[in-house]
């Protein structure tokens, strides 16, 4: 099928670019590792608080931390696309018969795969800190992180295609990632929040993902939060990808 052929070509091309400087796969893991080493001990010192039972801090904190990585690790991929727009690479692709969706999918899938590798590495680092995980739940969580990465990458590319310059892209992406991560109970549980923040968090799609992955890590497969998380993020992923595709098709005209 042509779409699979084209996606494979674009995926390989983008992966080659990443592998040219593989060090950056690790550099962008710096933020979550800092949280793990320098922030999680603070949570341990809090004792028992609502939503963060004493002695289980790491089990609650790590799934959220991986969502944080999924958000921030992929949020800034749009910068690489701006470089490709400026050097005319995207225009060159657009005058070939390659599927427009493949141009975007080849990047987004690369970003999601890199993210998965990072999530696995972070989890491995967390195990000596006492992390106990349900393996099946962890594997399902990886799928959820991939969907979050897919979503954030699509948003990033969508704005890159609209702005075409770096100056506007960074503040826009910060404007999205910061409230979205604060309102998902990643750093501190939302159980601590006043009611209005809790209500605000209900319209944040990523808070559902955090709830879902925490249930999965704990092995509570029957929890309805899991289905909610997958449905919400899948729908969002499809919507933002189509929006990004529309931006790509409109880029030139």
């Amino acid at each position, binding site marked *: 099928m*042509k779409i699979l*052929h*084209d996606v494979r*070509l674009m995926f390989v*091309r983008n992966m*080659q*670019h990443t592998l*040219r400087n593989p060090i950056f796969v690790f550099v962008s893991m710096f933020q979550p590792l800092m949280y793990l080493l320098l922030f999680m001990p603070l949570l341990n010192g809090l004792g028992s608080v609502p939503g963060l039972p004493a002695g289980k801090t790491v089990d609650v904190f790590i799934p959220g931390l991986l969502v944080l990585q999924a958000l921030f690790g992929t949020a800034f991929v749009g910068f690489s696309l701006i470089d*490709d727009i400026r*050097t*005319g*690479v*995207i*225009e*060159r*692709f*657009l*005058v*070939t*018969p*390659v599927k427009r969706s493949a141009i975007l999918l080849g990047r987004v899938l690369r970003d999601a795969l890199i993210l998965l590798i990072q999530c696995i590495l972070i989890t491995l680092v967390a195990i000596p800190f006492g992390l106990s995980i349900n393996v099946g739940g962890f594997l399902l969580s990886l799928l959820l992180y991939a969907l979050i990465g897919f979503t954030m990458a699509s948003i990033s590319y969508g704005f890159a295609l609209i702005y075409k310059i770096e100056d506007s892209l960074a503040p826009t992406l910060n404007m999205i990632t910061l409230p979205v991560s604060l309102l998902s109970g990643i750093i501190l549980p939302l159980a601590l929040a006043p009611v209005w923040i809790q209500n605000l968090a209900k319209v944040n799609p990523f808070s559902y993902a955090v709830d879902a992955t925490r249930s999965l890590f704990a092995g509570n497969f029957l929890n309805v939060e899991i289905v909610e998380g997958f449905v919400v993020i899948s729908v969002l992923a499809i919507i933002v990808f189509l929006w990004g595709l529309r931006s790509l098709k409109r880029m*030139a*005209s």
Partner: protein
Amino acid sequence: MVGDLVIETKGLRKTFISDEKGGKKEVEAVKGIDLTVRKGEIFGFLGPNGAGKSTTQKMLSTLLRPTSGEAKVLGYDLAEQQQQIRQNVGCVSQTGGADLASTGVENLVLQAQLYGLDTSTAKKYTSEFVKRFQMTSFIMRPAQSYSGGQKRRLDIALGMIHHPQLLLLDEPTTGLDPQSRAYLWGEIKKLKAEGVTIFLTTQYMDEADKLCDRIAIIDYGEIIITGTPAELKGYVGGDTIVFGFLSEDTAQCAESLLTKSIQVERIQTNKSSVYFTIKDGEKMMPELLRSLDAKNLTAQSVMLSRPSLDDVFLKYTGRSLREDEEIK
């Protein structure tokens, strides 16, 4: 395809909305142009910066959607059959669009695959073009290390890799050194000899003159005039000829002889030289020399200068193409 027309446009028009002080303004970049490009020719689209050359080229390559008007490219409808056009047209933009972090070979192989060629054919075509454009010495290095001329060779190879019937070249030699320009001109002529139709935009008169079979001059989004370089220059008037003689007396005699015997214009004598304008100066030259010799008025020196495309541009726009370049 209708007859042997490779490109045919009717009222092709493109407007952009631009943000300016005092609100949004509609800018008409291409004002409804009619164009025909014939099979096998090099068609030059000549005009100053901002005349609408690139916009037209981007419409023909399906990159920009025309605001109105219609066009057929290789017989395919521009509005309906974009995939067929993309598959059969090669396109080289001004920026080129090579992936700078990748090697030339990686660029070329991927480009061939994007046109649907399998890996072994893609590699075969790549090595063909590497040899053809003499890129062996640098093609395994990342493209960011290439010189301007090397990069341009890669760009054109990228546009040609799938052996299209029509090649759109947007200012292929802008910013290149004279040697690289001459090399590229040679390669473009070779492509024509192989039967490829070439649509080339340029802001250089000498390039249009030396390379193109036919030229359309575009200014402010409108085509001013179309024709072969010779035809266009013919519209300006004749060639200028200067005969030099040994003495002022001989020159005076020559002037009166030429005035009486042959159809010349604007003749004048300055010291021992006679200046005049004549149609088809090259063809007339032997006859002129013979008639001078017959009266023992031997010319010591001869100079013939043909009108340039700049004279054409000047005549139809009231401006010189060169002035525009300098302002830029």
